[in-house]
């Protein structure tokens, strides 16, 4: 597979640079909306829509936005798209709107979207940025789907709202509560780490330019860059 082919940009978002399991971004919606499969997948798709649009616009404007005020600019662009998505969902899917509640508006501060703007869209062409948005969005949705499936089946004995009757007496309620979300998330990270170890790029480095924490990070000050496998582990 060529390193920067369109397909590899999409695929890396799904597994080897999965925003939730490898980059550990967007933790808040991951824990909050995964109590049920329906809510989790809607959250994933809504975030994906925002991500694609914001990656597109930010990549388009990447030469115009001054470096010093880039974060406010990104946030305004992202907030604009979130408002559009929120209004559309409110108008056409009121049930989903009720279910996601405040987390829909909170997509604005979802780390995945700002993270991809910083890490990818601000440095790459429009086409690649849109593909990155698709890949990362799919990765996010897939991660939410996996976590919510485990939580809903074990904790509520149902799948996407459909009750699984033979599991009904064996519900383990902790899985639909907050600690259960943390537990399942941790196990999934471990699982994905086992799957990707050795198969992923041998030594991935994120460069420090454009990293929001570079000024706070020891490696950022020396300019070494993160060895992502180690950092994530």
């Amino acid at each position, binding site marked *: 597979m060529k390193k920067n082919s369109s397909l590899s940009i999409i695929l890396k978002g799904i597994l080897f640079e999965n925003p939730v399991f490898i980059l550990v971004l967007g933790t808040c919606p991951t824990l909050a909306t995964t109590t049920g499969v329906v809510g989790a997948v809607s959250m994933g798709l809504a975030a994906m829509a925002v991500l694609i649009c914001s990656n597109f616009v930010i990549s388009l404007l990447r030469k115009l936005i001054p470096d010093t005020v880039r974060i406010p600019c990104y946030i305004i662009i992202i907030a604009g798209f979130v408002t559009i998505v929120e209004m559309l969902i409110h108008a056409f899917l009121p049930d989903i709107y009720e279910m996601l509640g405040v987390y829909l508006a909170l997509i604005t501060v979802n780390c995945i979207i700002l993270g991809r703007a910083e890490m990818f869209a601000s440095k790459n062409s429009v086409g690649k940025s849109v593909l990155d948005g698709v890949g990362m969005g799919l990765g996010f949705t897939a991660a939410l789907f996996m976590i919510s499936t485990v939580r809903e089946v074990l904790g509520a004995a149902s799948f996407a709202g459909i009750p699984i009757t033979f599991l009904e007496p*064996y519900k*383990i*309620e902790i*899985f639909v*509560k907050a*600690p259960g979300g943390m*537990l399942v998330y941790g196990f999934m990270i471990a699982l994905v780490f086992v799957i990707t170890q050795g198969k992923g790029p041998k030594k991935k480095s994120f460069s420090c330019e454009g990293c929001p924490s570079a000024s706070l990070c020891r490696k950022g000050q020396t300019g070494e860059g993160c060895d992502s496998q180690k950092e994530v582990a």
Partner: protein
Amino acid sequence: MSQLHVSASPHIHSGNSTSGIMRDVLIALLPTTLAGVIIFGWRALLVLLVSVGSAVGFEALWQWLLKKDQTITDLSAAVTGLLLGLNLPANIPLWQVVIGNLFAIIVVKCLFGGLGCNLVNPAITGRVFMLVSFGSLVKNAFPVGVDATTSATPLGTLAAGGTVSYADLFLGNVGGAIGETCKLALLIGFVYLLVRRVITWHLPVVFIASSFVLTFLFNGFDLNAAALMTLSGGLFIGAIFMATDYVTSPATAWGKVVFAVGAALITVMVRLWGNYPEGVSYGILLMNILTPYIETWTRHKRFGEVKKA
């Protein structure tokens, strides 16, 4: 001795071993186990057997799957299983006992690196896991043995404004978990542990005493109610057997005191103002997490150390 060995200190060994200490804890739990079986009947014994069996089984399975040295002979898994079982009501479904032990042994202990590396006490965390997961079942505990008339736990009765007699509370003739009701048996175990010098008196005594004082202070200066609440619930088994776990409690005497007061504070707050009737598990669990900080805070001064200006 034909050879001289040169090795780093310490050179004097007390002869204590993990399995020896764990065996002492098991012996100390024997009166409690007997009392539980007498009070709650054969069903209690079944719960305990399933609990110990599944705890040891899961540890053996984990070590076998990961091709590590078998560690079940140090008896720590058996202690975890027995303690968890003693903290469950006798009428609990057996599959829940197995799930609780799965969590206690695999998630809390083995995933963190086995005995000595666990952050929190496996038995107490297993109990909290079950309390959160199967809350309704743990709360509706009732004795199924000789005395089936008491349906609520003493803490539930007290919360509802009822009264419980001291003799019943002390001898364990009340509702609750298998091992938590008979204070007499628990105290016999405590004395055995003290005599065998497995634990020191600090943690249990300070834990129970400060629970009493705090209940007295926060609950309207009522001596009788404070005494009843101190004798109720899992305070004694928690203070004597769960909080004193070597791995998850501070090593210094002052650290133990801080741990005990903190755990008592959380226990009393949950009991008086929380949603759950019983807070001992949460008190111990939260203080387990703070243990590394307490240890740093109460570290012994090194011999010859001078205070930094």
